[in-house]
């Protein structure tokens, strides 16, 4: 895998100086320290959860336990500013951390809190909101759900209609949200509500923080996904009274708040390529133990090699793109950057998971929900790789749908290519 990381990427192109891609020796010591921690700190259940993660969302309980361990170590939010609990690491250190994280097959931390609402509050929350919410996000006491989508407002998010009426110091909410990931585990929620129907539809939206998810009048119903697991939820509001102090930004200015947050959601604070390379490594390892129908092992099969080779080359390119971007290269300032990142990444996840199911073959056809649960005493029918590959494939059908579908992303990208 990638062991050489540009040590001073910011130079090429921007200053005219030569780009160096060697690794400073002191970074190797850092890598060893990280690897050592990942080898010793996670409990067996956390490791199991990491190996059995078949979505971008890891199994909740073990994921939050791991969150806590990272918090205690001071490593839970490398991408946050140091004053708010970040690590103060260099770009290279963050990349090494991400690489070692993936190599150890640890459960990814859930994105909504550390990746979305946290950075948003750091950027534009009031001092009171920061004091009140950031500590719980960092230490994992709180878990936030993202309440944007509605049954009739998916790609056209601005058409949302879940309504909040001001009433004294409160808002009264009526309506519903859908596809709210892990709302059944969450204790807090950030959401978009309609506060005005006048003017352009974007202009009547407000961004709200709910400090609890069990207000009277709220109901949460999990939705079972095509992989057999409840991951998303429907959330219903009937005359739910919440304090106005949870508003971020001004009333009716929620659209710009949401757009700000979207940068964090699509831009992806965390590099995806190490995870994707890890999928390929796992597929390769499984292929070494799988006979090819054309003789020998699948890993030695020319067609398999061509396929995984093309995929790995594409993932490598994503890695290059990511490294340039985090170094502050101009490609990251391209207005189409978040959309390109999202499109490349989501389609590679799908391709990698297809390859995995091809390696699993018929062993991927068994429905093994019980065996997939962390701590299950049901033996998988085949290997752990076979157990995971099909649910991962099925779940990854969503990557081109959520966070703005790829059709919508391509429209955004295309707009930046036009002659104007």
């Amino acid at each position, binding site marked *: 895998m990638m062991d050489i990381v540009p040590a001073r990427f910011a130079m090429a192109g921007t200053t005219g100086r030569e780009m160096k891609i060697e690794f400073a020796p002191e970074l190797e010591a850092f890598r060893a320290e990280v690897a050592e921690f990942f080898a010793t700190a996670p409990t067996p259940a956390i490791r199991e959860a990491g190996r059995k993660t078949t979505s971008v969302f890891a199994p909740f309980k073990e994921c939050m336990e791991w969150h806590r361990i990272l918090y205690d170590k001071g490593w839970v939010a490398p991408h946050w500013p140091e004053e708010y609990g970040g690590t103060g690491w260099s770009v290279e250190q963050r990349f090494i951390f991400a690489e070692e994280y993936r190599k150890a097959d640890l459960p990814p931390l859930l994105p909504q809190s550390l990746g979305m609402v946290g950075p948003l509050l750091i950027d534009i929350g009031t001092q009171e909101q920061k004091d009140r919410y950031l500590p719980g996000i960092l230490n994992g006491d709180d878990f936030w759900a993202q309440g944007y989508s509605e049954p009739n407002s998916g790609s056209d998010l601005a058409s949302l209609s879940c309504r909040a009426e001001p009433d004294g110091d409160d808002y009264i909410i009526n309506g519903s949200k*859908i596809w709210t990931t892990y709302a059944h585990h969450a204790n807090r929620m950030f959401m978009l509500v309609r506060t005005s129907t006048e003017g352009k539809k974007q202009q009547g939206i407000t961004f709200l923080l709910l400090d609890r998810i069990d207000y009277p009048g709220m109901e949460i119903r999990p939705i*079972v996904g095509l992989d057999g697991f409840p991951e998303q939820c429907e959330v219903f509001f009937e005359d739910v009274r919440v304090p106005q102090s949870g508003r971020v930004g001004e009333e009716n200015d929620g659209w710009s708040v949401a757009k700000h947050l979207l940068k964090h959601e699509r831009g992806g604070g965390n590099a995806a390529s190490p995870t994707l390379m890890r999928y390929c490594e796992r597929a390769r390892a499984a292929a070494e133990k799988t006979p090819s*129908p054309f003789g020998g092992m*699948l890993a030695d099969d020319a067609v398999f090699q061509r396929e995984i080779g093309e995929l790995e080359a594409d993932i490598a390119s994503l890695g290059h793109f990511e490294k340039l971007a985090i170094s502050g290269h101009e490609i990251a300032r391209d207005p189409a950057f978040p959309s390109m990142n999202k499109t490349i990444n989501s389609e590679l996840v799908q391709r990698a998971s297809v390859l995995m199911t091809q390696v699993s073959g*018929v062993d991927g*056809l068994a*429905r093994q929900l019980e065996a997939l649960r962390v701590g299950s005493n049901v033996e998988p029918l085949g290997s752990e790789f076979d157990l995971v590959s099909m649910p991962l494939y*099925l779940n990854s059908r*969503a990557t081109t749908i959520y966070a703005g*579908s790829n059709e919508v992303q391509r429209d955004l990208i295309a707009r930046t290519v036009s002659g104007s």
Partner: protein
Amino acid sequence: MDFSFTDEQQMLRDGVGKFLEKSYDFDTRQKLVNSDAPWSADAWQQFAEFGLLALPFSEEQGGLGGSISDCVAFAELFGKHLVIEPYLGSVMLAGSALAQSGHAAAQEWVEKIVSGEAVAAFAFEEGHGTASPELVAMTAQGSGDSARLTGEKRLVHAGGDADAIVVLAKKGEGGPLAFYLVEAGADGLDARAYTTIDGRSAANITFTDVAATELGTSEEAVEKLISEAIIVQSAEAVGAMGALVAMTGEYAHTRKQFGVPIATFQAVAHRLADMKIAYTKARATLIYTTALAESGAATPRDIAILKGQIGKLGRAVGEAAIQTHGGVGMTDELSVSHYHKRLLACDTTFGDHAYHFRKVGMG
């Protein structure tokens, strides 16, 4: 040449179609899949009454002497309704294997299968890459009525529930292939039953010195049997693809975003067009290959082309259907994801498209 269904086939389609429409709607099917029953005994009985269980067998054997195109005629409807009953395994595969054998025990089982009294399973798959019979590694010791089987078979549809299992194995080390009959409950059988992602009952079965009756067969006969099963399975896949194209088109014309039906966005419209092209291409290859098989002219290459195309195009249609449905396409509640899982299963069983394309490429 005439590639249309005959009047008789059309009548059969109408009858089976009406029955499934009435008694096998998606909600009923889901209740069945989520129940303890491996499949619907009532539906199976109905299939017997329609003559489906007797169709591929000769009249001397109590069958109707039907042809492969008769099976294709109704199998498309099985795909359209995501039927989970083990028709392919019990009738097309195990049943045909038994029917080929002159052994008296085999003939008795055929009668029971035809009447719907018994269900048989077909144990062929051994894990990866056993898409071709020549790759079967399981070996039988002994012969005749005192053969013994040791080894493992996987993804045996109805394997945990069948009354009899027909096993494909080699006659001794390096010997030719033969079918073996094993009765349910035989000593040394260890079936680990499960449900497949597409809702069917299956099992991985370990055989430890299990008493079996040799039914005999030839390599050609095995090849033909599997080719016909591939054709019928392809018909199911085409039926599932057709259902997806129809429901995705309907959804795209009613689902509104940005104030208009999503079908008006070119990205969506072109995807619908591609889905229709894929379906039509797959169906053309299915019907043409069926006609070839019926006239005895289908080569292994023709079958590999069919299997490869159905696998690839089916996956593409399923993925496009989910994408077009957005979030709802990702749910267990909607049939879309279940159609896709059936198509994945069709692609994977008997070798996936990559395998078959390579066969085609090898000439």
